[in-house]
């Protein structure tokens, strides 16, 4: 079925949001600048083939041209792959224009308690059928502890639900911070994941991985292990590069070890297709 990612959601495995089409990467910025559709399509297809459920599109570096660039990305990517997108922007104008072109149910990344951002994005996320990433941060600063995350996350989820957004459409992001700066940030994010899912049964959780390894060597290794720990805490969705075979191998083996892969079928299939090892 086109424009949906029912496959993975239905079998309860990780929802994969493929992160590579982001203009903070220079090659992507160049491709968007030149309207080089072939490069973008290749990134989209490679990520779709590698197991993406959603393709993230971000044109934030284009600032005042973000809206047109994001819209171009939506049409270009969905012209090539039958997947819904993760519209990655805090800009309500860019989002509402992109939503008009988007086919299927997208993820909007993201909303927070920041008063301006909340007010301007609320009408966007409630007017169209979409899912939304809710950041566990107060309007005043980055959260430090698990408690701060759960407190901010709970307030935001509460507000969104009271505005009519169903819990199932909300993806809570606990905000992963560098472990190099404070060795308690890993457990703070992990505990917040568990805490939010206990408080709001049915809510989904999402996070990016690469922040955790900032300032340390062998970041890939750290990201892989952190993903496994997140999976253990019940993470629903991850923003990652599905073409990273080591990361995907970690994902599949961790899910299998947690009893989420009957007959170890997915793990073995991946191995037999040469995706592992």
């Amino acid at each position, binding site marked *: 079925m086109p424009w949906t990612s029912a496959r993975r959601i239905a079998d309860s495995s990780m929802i994969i949001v493929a992160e590579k089409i982001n203009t903070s990467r220079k090659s992507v910025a160049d491709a968007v600048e030149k309207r080089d559709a072939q490069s973008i399509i290749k990134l989209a297809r490679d990520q779709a083939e590698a197991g993406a459920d959603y393709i993230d599109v971000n044109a*934030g570096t284009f*600032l005042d041209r973000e809206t047109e660039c994001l819209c171009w990305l939506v049409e270009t990517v969905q012209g090539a792959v039958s997947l819904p997108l993760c519209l990655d922007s805090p*800009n309500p104008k860019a989002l509402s224009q992109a939503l008009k072109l988007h086919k299927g149910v997208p993820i909007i990344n993201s909303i927070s308690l920041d008063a301006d951002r909340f007010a301007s994005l609320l009408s966007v996320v409630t007017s169209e059928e979409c899912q939304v990433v809710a950041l566990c*941060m107060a309007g005043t600063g*980055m959260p430090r502890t698990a408690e701060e995350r759960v407190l901010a996350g709970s307030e935001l989820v509460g507000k969104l639900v009271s505005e009519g957004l169903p819990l199932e459409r909300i993806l809570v992001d606990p905000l992963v911070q560098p472990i*190099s*700066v404070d060795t308690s940030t890993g457990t703070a994010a992990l505990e917040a994941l568990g805490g939010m899912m206990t408080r709001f049964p049915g809510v989904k959780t999402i996070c990016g991985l690469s922040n955790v390894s*900032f300032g*340390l060597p062998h970041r890939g290794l750290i990201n892989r292990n952190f993903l496994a720990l997140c999976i253990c805490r019940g993470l629903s969705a991850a923003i990652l590069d599905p073409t990273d075979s080591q990361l995907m191998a970690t994902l599949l083996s961790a899910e299998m070890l947690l009893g989420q892969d009957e007959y170890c079928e997915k793990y073995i299939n991946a191995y037999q297709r040469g995706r592992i090892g």
Partner: protein
Amino acid sequence: MGRLEALAESVIKGDIDAAVTQTQGALDEGLDVQRIISDSLITAMDVVGERFSKGQIFVPQMLRAAKTMQQCMKLLEPFLKEGDVVPKGKVLIGTVRGDLHDIGKNLVAMMLDGAGFTVTDLGVDVSPETFVQKTHEVQPDILGMSALLSTTMPAMRQTIEALQKADLRDTCKVMIGGAPVTAKYAQEIGADSYAPDAGSAVGEAKKLLGIS
């Protein structure tokens, strides 16, 4: 190895206990406080910043060294008289409006402090108006701005424009940094300098003020 070299080595390693003992030892021996600071502590932090920039050491090691230096300074401060230590310069620093990320900015502030600059940290989400007002008050040699989001980078340009309007742009150098920031962007918005990381921020700051 002399006492000062040994202390510098302990700061580089981030060995707080050894560094504190050695600092006390140096004081007991009657060594000049200014010399302890400049020849041991600041020298050590220069090495740390350089090694960090080269990728030889990592963020936790840099943090540890800075923490070690701070503990040593606590011992030395009671012996410092007004004017004993001439700061390398005054730096005003903050994360720009709309941006709440402080990790990179904090690392830069910490390394500048370790290098002997006087740092005034305005925190996060600092509006152009606040930067202008504080520049007027503090009269820094360098104004440092940080942004982690491509969406908040324009606030750097707005701050520089606000400084121009307030006739303060020529009173200080402007240095910018943060993950999406580039040297090209610094040039575009009329900043004086771009630093890719906390280690090189110190080198850039010295270059701006013509200190070796």
